């Protein structure tokens, strides 16, 4: 089960829940499961970057997840 951590900016859509266990093999499945459980998250996830086991993906695409992956949703930042 991947553990997903939501930033405080999204917890108002989940009734305050900020840590969620999700059974998903890839990011699209993870997002679908999150939006299933918390419909208010729909549309909020596309603007976020995703850290999978510490590595941040500005575009998480179809990245695979391990059985015990730790996932953080993180604001996107740009370099210069």
């Amino acid at each position, binding site marked *: 089960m991947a553990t997903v951590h939501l930033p*405080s*900016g999204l917890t108002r859509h989940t009734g305050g829940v900020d840590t969620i266990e999700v059974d998903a093999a890839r990011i699209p499945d993870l997002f679908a499961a999150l939006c299933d459980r918390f419909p208010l998250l729909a549309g909020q996830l596309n603007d976020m970057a995703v850290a999978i086991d*510490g590595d*941040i993906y500005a575009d998480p695409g179809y990245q695979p997840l391990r059985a015990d992956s730790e996932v953080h949703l993180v604001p996107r930042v*740009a*370099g*210069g």
Partner: protein
Amino acid sequence: MTAPREFKYVGTRPIRHDGVDKVTGRASYGADVAWPGMLHGVVLRSPHAHARIVKIDTRAAEATPGVHAVITARDLPETSAKIAIGEAAVDLRDIADNVMARTKVLYHGHAVAAVAATTLDIARRAAEAIAVVYEVLEPVMSVDRAIAAGAPILHPAMKTTGTPAADAGGATNVASRLELKRGDVDAGFAAADLVVEREFRTPMVHQGYIEPHACIARCGEDGRAVVWCTTQGPFFVRDASAAIAGLDPAHLKVIPSEIGGGFGGKIVVYLEPLALALSRKAQRPVKMVMGRDEVFRATGPTSGSRVRVKLGARRDGTLVAASASLWYEAGAYAGSPAGAGAMCALAAYKIPNFFIEAHDVVVNKPKVAAYRAPGSPIAAFAVESVVDEIARELKIDPIELRLRNANAEGDRAPYGPKYGPIGLTQVLEAARNHPHWRAPLGANQGRGVAVGFWFNAGMNSSATVTLNGDGSAAVVTGNPDIGGTRAAQAIMVAEELGIPVERVRSNVGDTDGSGYTDVTGGSRVCYATGMAVIRAAEDAREQLKARAATIWNVSREAVEWHDGRAVPPEGTEKAKPMTVAELAAEMTHTGGPIVGRASLYAPMAGPAFGAHICDLEVDPETGRSQVVRYTVFQDVGRAVHPSYVEGQMQGGAAQGIGWALNEAYVYSADGVMENAGFLDYRMPVASDLPMIETVMVEVANPLHPYGVRGVGEVPIVPPLAAVANAMRDATGIRFTELPLSPPRVLEAIEAADAVAVQA
């Protein structure tokens, strides 16, 4: 990550291959090229900081002899496409409106029309003949004004996105608000033995690249177009310019020139869509070059800011709570790096309780663009100043205090995920152990230390490595070379193929000749594009092995590779090791040309820390300060070409020193920049600085084959606080507003002296 590797070329300092062209003046930058039949394009810019455009009458301009095209926003399609820029997707509508104002002008210098004519003089006179009727509005020139009740509103439809404040609602100039929190800040502060809270202000500053924006565009009768321009990202120029000018990107090729500095400021587009639209209308190539005042007024500087930081510590120096409120100027449209500032502010420290809010605020100043670790220097100035206060108050050595609280591998970054291997402790220890930290100080001198952090980007990169019949190689990527990356790429290919660095030609391709790549920026080229280059060289090497197998008539798997040679399996008849040159000579007979290629999407990995020690001498009679000694410590992962890594460390430090001591946009009450030139926008010159010593710490980035970490951005983060902390040490005064220019410092010194006299 494999076992430590012995490198032959990585870590050496060959002379860069493009160097001779640069020291002889032959290298072609954006404005150095002329195309046959070329016209000159000029932009008409708003004289008001905030106004509605009522009417634009271009007839007099169009009628001027020698004028071939005049455009306004009406010549550009309305667009609302979202497009990837750097790591974040932005609404192209704002960029398009910034490139040419449609209904409102939002800063002094905002483009409203453009003219192409046979000479620059004719174009300028014709532009002046364009009659624009404005309804002038009151400008908003600061965060304080922007959020005040009753302030003029720049964008009536703007709503605060993210986590709006509880009382948000109605018209606003706050484009977004971000929150980061952990634990219980109130309880944390309650348990602290010492709480320090300060408010800081920094001015808008510019990247200060010496080469102004410049481009030539040529649009043909069939709608196919070519653009030559100075840019950090030719693919972004292609996609954004096509969308803004209304062209099919499939029919647009962008050729990047040599680039005379960028630092993030040349990731966006300003002139290219206009040059394309003018060229399409005139059916002639159009060259556009910005003047220096245009660069200041109408390209993207970085945010001015107001930042309040509160830190709580126990008596032993352990940080227990932190809160921060960041307000960053976005300029005319949403998009300041306040969010990044919030994520970086506490990146160095293990703090169990914190609350950070970051606001993106629009004001009537140019739309900000990325500037080297965008958002992080401002946040570090505030946090590192307060950490310095705490160290002083608790009488703990400032480096020791930071070491006690330093994050390490496995600790949680403030934005959530755990850090992989990071070099913060190593960097701090290197600073503490360096003679600079113990060197005696002279009269009126003070010493300051500060740390800084940046994420370092990944993203899309492509590379090809082509072998020539003589065994030399050429590598092509799509990343303009700002700081010596071609040299580093040549080293990587040499290392992987086992051929001398001089036998590798390293090139920057155009958008047709190179696979897609994201911008040169975000400290990502040696890391992400470097990975693609290494993999492309490996691909070429595998093909060479396959050719050897063909020649020796053995299976490919049996062929080994050592020290630049394909090696046959033991006992193979009539087979001896073959060099790259020998194999390349046989390419035609063994299957045809060899082209190695790779393309990838890399995650942001390999965040990096730096620490700077600054010695400042302050003249109490004039308030003028001189940096007398400066040392930069940084975790660089692996220095591929150490000279150019040192160069990044020194250059970033110099920009940060300028930001701390002298640089600022100075505005009139009407919102007009009063110092839009290099005389009064005072950047450091050679006599302002000492030699800048660099100490590289190498904690390998596990994702990169050589351990490379991005190095370009981190060095601009610590200087603001390092200088301010040195100023505190020298004068006894804590300055919370930048720049620490002589008039400001002198006034504070005299005020402090007056107080001392009275006491």
